[in-house]
């Protein structure tokens, strides 16, 4: 079982650690949108590969952007 699990996927790298120039800012929802699902949910770091530090600031930024209606809470078809 363990062996099979290891075969899955390559190692994910935190996008914000890889590129230090990207600033996580709630006023710039275009970056944040890449880390939400089509439904508007925040993508967990286990899937996006973000490190804990950047995931924390990312969720905070997304929640702030939601409050000022720059990003949706939910997307209903």
């Amino acid at each position, binding site marked *: 079982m363990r062996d099979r699990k290891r075969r899955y996927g390559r190692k994910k790298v935190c996008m914000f650690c890889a590129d230090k120039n990207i600033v996580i800012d709630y006023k710039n929802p*275009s970056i944040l*949108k890449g880390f939400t699902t089509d439904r508007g949910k925040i993508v967990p770091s286990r899937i996006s590969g973000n490190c804990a530090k950047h995931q924390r600031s990312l969720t905070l930024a997304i929640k702030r952007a939601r409050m000022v209606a720059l990003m949706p809470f939910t997307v209903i078809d």
Partner: protein
Amino acid sequence: MTLSRSYQDEIGSEREYELIVILKPDSTKENIQVLTKRLLEMVDKNSGKVLNIENWGRRNLAYEIAKSKKGIYLYFRLLGYYELIPEVERLLRMIEKVVRYQTILVDENVDPTARPDQVDEAMLDAISEIHTAVYNEETDENSEKNSDDDNDFEDEEEADFEEDEDKE
């Protein structure tokens, strides 16, 4: 008022805040002028400073607020002690055209002399002009770029679920 009001703050330092105000889409130029004037007075009274004002124009909201899908965004950068914020927010609640506001602490322990005051008459004139959504086009472009990443996540998510099933 050089006294520091909180144990967190260094003596002689102030805090920098970001304030976003959303107005009803039918707000006029005068509404904005009145709002900024009253806000400037309020900040002045509390010995704070307005560092910058921006008008982001009439933009589409991500969801409906006050039965409207559009809103006019105003962005302020303030410098002052923490007592300033409840006063400003009380003022905003009293103005009918304001549908939403959000204040965010950007920086603590800022030396007030290090941040120049950039607001003048010309700027106040400029921000009361209401433009219609220049920003939205920009974000659309970027979201297309990011859509590939999105798909990546979805695939991997499915892979994870498959694993879980196998375990059982």
